[in-house]
């Protein structure tokens, strides 16, 4: 028999205990106590195999664990990394890379040329997603433990970018791959070594004191998964975390005036676009596609999706990038849009627009676009699905128009080839243009920098003229960190590198 008073007393006792233990000081914070840099990222990485993952959350962590042969500096120019130097033969077909001396993996295994060959052969032989980076490569060979020779079938000016542009091309440890551990316990050569992962909570890295680029000044990094941006920002303001890229865009203006927080709003190389399904009439008619391009109000889309932090662009590559080419054909012009539609035989009544809740900006933009196209007599039926369904639908060509973005591009070949070359691996819109094909092929082997820039500028102009993609905007990299964190800067390729970061304790407090 239960006594209500006893039960109430017991509950009260428990609560009093709870409250009593709640005194200031609040116990040990595992992350804080360790002296680690605490970085809040907006979601949980999937697998930690750099060559297999496609998730940005994974790359945020793995950027600090792995190395590539060469790596981009802040201006995205390729600089020595695991390869200390390299030579290119006079026929431009043989690249010889000399590995840095004394590099070891986190488990102590010395890095050898065989590891580089193994890593590249794995991508090539298993045809992993990044295999297209090796499309010109005919042979990868270790001539001695410190030298790797890569042969190409044609001069390949972007080989270095292909090898070092991102950590998907990381040099991995054979035994780590063969044991199957790489997905959960990756072993790299980078500035930080993987320690642990707690599902839904965090990933902890510790400094690699033998890092070839110099031992990090911080003992480690704890990546905390905080998907709600307002929570991440509160945690930053409360001093619980040191860094985050999960920042509510609507608060950027206010944060610019906050001295206690360093805010970086850096234009990125990412871009968002619309693509019309050219396998289906009437979207196979370039005039219909152009009409859509003329009717889109990019300024309104930028405002609605990013509170003005993004930059509208009619091409993929942003101003400030060495490969930028000016282009401004599609300024908002409804009359032009209407006359193009009339030429093409009238406006389509309805359009099925495929967007995904995984990227809320696509849903927001779709509403603006539906509004933009209404005056043309086109009813936009917005279809919001989750990412899994979106990929299915895109792949089976079940859409009239879709909106998506491409992230982390460096070389112009990354921006255009797979997306716009006939039969390209990412050409879901089924665009095909012989001039574009010729120019994109030429760009892959053109070694004269100016001629190459010219090829891509021409290709990009045709792609936009023909509205293979209707380019919308380049988003900004938005990151915030506290004043204790120094030696870190936001990069336009969104690589999160804490190798040179340090944390200084504030004088007072």
């Amino acid at each position, binding site marked *: *028999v*239960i006594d*209500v*008073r006893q039960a*109430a007393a017991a*509950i*009260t006792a*428990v*609560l009093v205990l*709870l409250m009593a*233990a*709640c005194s*200031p000081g*609040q*116990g*040990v*914070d*595992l992350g804080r106590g360790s002296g680690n840099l605490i970085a*809040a990222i907006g979601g*949980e*990485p*999937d*697998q*930690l195999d750099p060559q297999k993952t*496609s*998730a940005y959350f994974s790359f945020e962590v793995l950027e600090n664990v792995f190395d590539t042969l060469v790596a981009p500096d802040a201006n995205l120019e390729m600089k020595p990394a695991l390869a200390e130097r390299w030579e290119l033969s006079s026929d431009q077909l043989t690249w010889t890379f000399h590995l840095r001396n004394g590099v070891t993996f986190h488990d102590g295994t010395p890095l050898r040329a065989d590891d580089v060959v193994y890593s590249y052969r794995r991508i090539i032989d*298993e*045809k*992993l*997603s990044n295999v*297209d980076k090796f499309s010109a490569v005919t042979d990868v060979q270790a001539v001695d433990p410190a030298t790797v020779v890569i042969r190409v079938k044609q001069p390949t000016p972007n080989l270095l970018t292909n090898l070092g542009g991102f950590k998907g091309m990381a040099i991995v440890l054979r035994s780590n791959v063969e044991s199957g551990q790489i*997905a*959960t316990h990756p072993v790299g050569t980078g500035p930080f070594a993987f320690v642990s992962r*707690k*599902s*839904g*909570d965090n990933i902890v890295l510790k400094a690699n004191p033998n890092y070839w680029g110099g031992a990090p000044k911080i003992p480690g990094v704890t990546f*905390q*998964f*905080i*998907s*709600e941006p307002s*929570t991440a920002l*509160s*945690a930053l*303001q*409360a001093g*619980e975390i040191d860094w985050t890229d999960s920042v509510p865009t609507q608060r950027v203006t206010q944060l610019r005036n906050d001295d206690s927080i360093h805010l970086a709003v850096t234009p990125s190389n990412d871009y968002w676009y619309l693509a019309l399904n050219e396998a289906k009439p009437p979207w196979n008619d370039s005039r219909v596609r152009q009409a859509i391009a003329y009717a889109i109000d990019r300024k309104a889309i930028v405002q609605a999706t990013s509170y003005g932090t993004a930059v509208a662009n009619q091409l993929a590559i942003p101003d400030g990038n060495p490969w930028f080419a000016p282009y401004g054909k599609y300024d908002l012009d409804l009359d032009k849009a209407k006359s193009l539609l009339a030429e093409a035989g009238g406006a389509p009544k309805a359009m099925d627009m495929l967007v995904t809740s*995984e990227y809320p900006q696509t849903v927001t933009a779709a509403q603006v676009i539906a509004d933009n196209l209404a005056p043309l007599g086109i009813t936009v039926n917005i279809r919001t699905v*989750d*990412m*899994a*369904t979106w*990929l*299915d639908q895109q*792949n089976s060509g079940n859409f009239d128009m879709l909106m*998506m973005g491409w992230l982390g591009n460096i070389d112009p070949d990354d921006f255009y080839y*797979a997306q716009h070359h006939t039969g390209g*691996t*990412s050409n879901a819109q089924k665009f095909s243009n012989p001039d574009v094909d010729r120019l994109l092929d030429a760009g892959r082997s053109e070694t004269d920098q100016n001629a190459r820039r010219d090829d891509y500028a021409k290709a990009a102009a045709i792609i936009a003229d023909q509205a293979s993609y209707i380019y919308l905007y380049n988003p900004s990299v938005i990151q915030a960190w506290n004043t204790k964190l120094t030696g870190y800067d936001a990069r336009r390729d969104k690589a999160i590198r804490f190798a040179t970061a340090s944390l200084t304790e504030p004088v007072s407090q």
Partner: protein
Amino acid sequence: MTMPALMTHPTVRFLARRLAYSVVVLIGVLVVVFALVHLVPGDPVRIALGTRYTPEAYDALRQASGLDRPLLVQFFSYLGNAVTGDLGVSFRNGDPVSQVLMERLPATVSLAVVGILVALVIALPAGIWSALREGRVSDAIVRVTSQFGVSVPDFWLGILLIALFATTLGWFPTSGYRPLFSDPGGWLAHIVLPGLTVGLVAAAILTRYVRSAVLEVSAMGYVRTAKSKGLAPQVVTMRHTVRNALVPILTITGIQLATILGGVIVVEVVFAWPGLGRLVYNSVAARDYPVIQGAVLLIAALFLLINLIVDALYAVVDPRIRLS
């Protein structure tokens, strides 16, 4: 007690029957979940590979995940492994599912227990008080407050609590979770705000049930008798009214607890709480079949366990109820 006597003991028979029943329910749940996840559009392999992949990599991953086998073969092989406690590995990150679930379970149980305690501490006195003062101003205040509590979105309440107690006052951390046993102080500090968020919303619902349960009992003849024979009002309330109202209160408390255990996704998102709700949500988005199946099984098992505890408590609260 000899073995046969033990086997025929009503409690043991009750437990044995419930266990058998639970196994049947869990298998039923598994069949439904398995069918559902495989029927829903969306390909786990495609989403794991992202927008850029080769057909070879697609086939390799599909084969490695066992998704190329006929559905029935997949089901029975899963069932066979599940019986031995092997729930497979996540498609998404290769972690063993049982390990992931065990990592998430403490956070979820902590939040549910603290949340329901907060709810009871508020709802029991408020509901009883309100019922005993039916129609008066104090009753109206409780009813309006609980109506407000029911209507408040939990994410909004969570954000408000963070803004006040974490950002402005700095009393508690904004987010995150610490394990109870290795870091009790950290656990406590971190659970206060999410526990309050969950508890306040549940309290609003519970208060209304407590109030109506007490009201219903108050109208009973035996309460009138107790009053008329001159028992002190507190004695009537505690011994006659509240005790008889406990059965419906237990029922709704059990349902509330089970709901919180099943995942309070929004609260978990706002407080970056590594609970089951967010796990299920993310796994569904990634079509991570083994994790969805494992998590739903675990949640179903928790539901059954709570039901069992509630049923047992009925017998404690009201001796007329026999375990059968």
